[in-house]
Structures are given as structure tokens and as C-alpha cells.
């Protein structure tokens, strides 16, 4: 089992979509929200995902293709 900590940023058109629920259900992942803020124009969620490594990767690819920005929760690892 693997764990990933990501920040998801939702554009306005996707704020009302139950994407995190679908992510957990369709990819068999445990989703755990640690911080979040949603307003009418943008939403962001700090999320912990637990599951098989491949399932995490596939799930994040799916949600990214759906239009959600996926970033590491701690900020970029790469530096100048």
C-alpha cells in the first residue's frame, strides 16, 4: 500500500462535481481530506490518498484529465 499527499485545484466548472468520491470508488482508494476551501470560482483540497501505487497514479491521471490541477501537497520538490 502506498500513500500520496496532493493538492487538487478545481476550476469553476468542476466545483459541483463529486470527483473525489468517484476517485475513491473507481480506483479503490481511501481518500482523506486534510484542508480544503471552496468558493464559487475555485476550490482546492489537500488530500491524502491511500491504496495501491498504480491505482494512485491511475486515479491522479484520471482526475487530471478531467480538468483538475494536481500538485504535491507540500509544494514543488524541484528547486532552482
Amino acid at each position, binding site marked *: 500500500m502506498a500513500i500520496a*499527499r496532493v493538492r487538487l485545484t478545481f476550476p469553476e466548472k468542476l466545483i459541483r462535481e463529486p470527483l473525489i468520491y468517484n476517485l475513491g470508488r473507481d480506483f479503490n482508494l481511501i481518500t482523506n481530506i486534510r484542508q480544503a476551501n471552496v468558493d464559487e470560482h475555485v476550490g482546492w483540497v*489537500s488530500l491524502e490518498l491511500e491504496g495501491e501505487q498504480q491505482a494512485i497514479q491511475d486515479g491522479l491521471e484520471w482526475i487530471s484529465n478531467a480538468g483538475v490541477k494536481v500538485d504535491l501537497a507540500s509544494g514543488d520538490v*524541484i*528547486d532552482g
Partner: protein
Amino acid sequence: MGYVTSLKCRGCSRETEIGPYNVCDYCFGPLEVVYDYEAMRPSISREAILNGPRTMWRYKDLLPVETDQVVDISAGYTPLVKADNLGRKLGLEQLYIKNDSVNPSFSFKDRVVSVAVTKAVEFGFDTVACASTGNLAGSVAAHAARAGMKAYVFIPADLEKGKVVGASIYGPNVVAVRGTYDDVNRLCSELVDSYHWAFVNTNMRPFYAEGSKTLGYEVAEQLGWKAPDHTVVPGASGALFTKIWKGFHEFLDLGVIGAVNTKMHLTQAAGCSPIINAYSAGSAFIKPVKPNTIAKSLAIGNPADGSYALRTIEESSGSGYAVPEENVVKGISLLAETEGIFTETAGGVVISGLKHLAETGVIKPDEVTVAYITGNGLKTQEAVEELVNPMIIDPTIESFRQVTGNI
């Protein structure tokens, strides 16, 4: 001895034990070191600092290490240059350049890496690592060599040759990753969890970041024990900006300097300016971007300290400015042609940002202003190749006179 008592989350304020951790387990916020300033106070004075080594380690008691055996390649104590020529051009009478391009591996990263590698040795690591677009890789490799540690530096496969050479020469394992910026990021976050290595700006980040405070301390000391009226600082993760502010305030709180009325101005390149985008929108939320900028050392799309940089702007009544991409090289030229300092693209961003602040009257002519130059121009030569236009002549005086005319 050191004065760190714990790590504390900057988001939810929960404290945790001292160790190689950078993220709060509860809310994923960034961790920061906590000092016992009252225990530290008796050992901090102008006299003690003046008696210290001519490196960043003259401020050792303010840094998060226990040992006296620091891993030091003589970083810091860099020149603060009074920039009269540039000042005259911009209408500024009290302009200074803090020239960190002359550090041992030619960037300010030597300050933060010196702290991180010293702490890594304290924690018992035998390997240090980083993911970098250039300056950090060179500094990590150099310090690892000095400490006798193994090193892995991860770079994008299309990194400029000069930077690859600048890291490789010290003998680390250089891993060039084929893929996008996001791919490199994701891979390295997985590596952090998979290997027991000291990733200098990840699991060592709370300690690493503290090294930047020395850029605040040194400027205050070099100005005669006072903080400037303005600073102009480049922004990548936002950490440097927040730590310079922290450095001024630690000196104030410990009685080393008087009032701090410094306005902190953050500059980013327009092709990667997530912090400035939020500042301009009046938002506290940093929306990550995909970097597309000539200033590769500032190309951080999801800045870890972005929201804290915004807070620093607000607390200091400072500002933020995104420099148009076409002005980055102009900034490099302007500094080189007036003060003889050759900086890399991040420095071009700073100088163009400084010019904007002067032209718009944000900085008044008689106000003491420090522009921070964080890296050396030799690292980004490709960016200024278009400026190279030697006069090519035959080996005769006639040929010379033909191209130069009447001089």
C-alpha cells in the same frame, strides 16, 4: 550548542519533535523550526558576531544546528556593493547590491545547503539528494564532497550543459530525468518516501530554509547595524523572501538592530509568477502554474512558501511585480554595464523589478534600497548569447579602422 526546541506547523501550529520532517502530519502544512530565543539571547551581540568567522557561520547561534563541526565551503559574507552608477541611472541615491553570485558554487544556495548538509550529518544520514534546475544541484554536490557524503542530484534531462557540468564536477551521482517538470517533481516526491536520504529541500526543508536568514543578518550588519528601507528579492518558492524578513526581525527582537521599517518587494518572471498572480488578484490562495520562463532558477510552479510570501508583503507594506519576459535579459545587461556584476536570469528579474519600482515612485530617491543578486551569470550564458557581437577584423590596422571608424 543549538537552540532549536521543536518543529511547528505554520498552518495549524501543532508542534512535533525535531527530525527530518517537512510536512505536518495533520494538515500537510509546512513545518518550521522553533527556537528558545530567551536561552539564545545571552550569546547574541554585535561583538559576538564581529568576532565570528567571515562566513555565514558568524551567525551560528541563530541557525538550527547543534554541532561546531559545520559543513562549510566558506559560503556567505558576500559583498554589499554601493551601486552609484546604477543608482544614478534609476534616480536612486542609496542603492546597494547584495552580491551572492560570488559564493563558492556561485549562488545563494550555498547558504541553505550548508545548513541542510550540516544537519543531515547530525541526523546520521550518509547520502544527500535534491531535485534541481541548476544552482541547488551544484551546491549540494559541492557540500557533499566537502562532507565526504554520497550525493544524488536529479535534474531535467534538457538542462543547460553549463549547469550539468557545474554539478557533475564535484563527483555526485547525476540523474537526468527524461520527462516534464511535473514528472521530475512526482518522481522525486516518491524517492523521498522510498530512500533514507537527506533531500535537502524536502525532508530537511525546515533546517535548509533557515540558511537564508543570513542574507538578512549580513545586510543589516553591512549597513551599519540597521535594516534597509526597501529590499527587492527574487521569488521562486518564496522561502528566501520570507526568511530575509525573519532575519531582520530576529535581529530586532534580540536587540542587535533598532526598528525594522523595511518594505519587502518580491519579483518574479511573468512566465512563472504564481505568487504575484495571487498578490495582484488580492487573493491569499496560490494557484499553481506551469512554468514557462527564461528564468529557470525561479521556475517553481507550485511554490511551497507562496502564501507566506504574500503575508510578508502585507506585513511589510511591500509589493510584488511580475517582470515581462523580454525585460529579464535587459536587467542582466543593465547591472553588468553599470556595476560590472554579471548575474543570471533571476538577477535580471530583480534589476528589472527594481527599475519598475524606481520609475513608479514606489522607492524614493533617498531611501536605502538593497537588491538581492542570488546567482552568477556564467550559469545562464545561453540566455544572453544574443548580446555577444564582437567586431571581427583582419589582422591589420586598416581593418580595425574600418569597423571602428573615427575613434
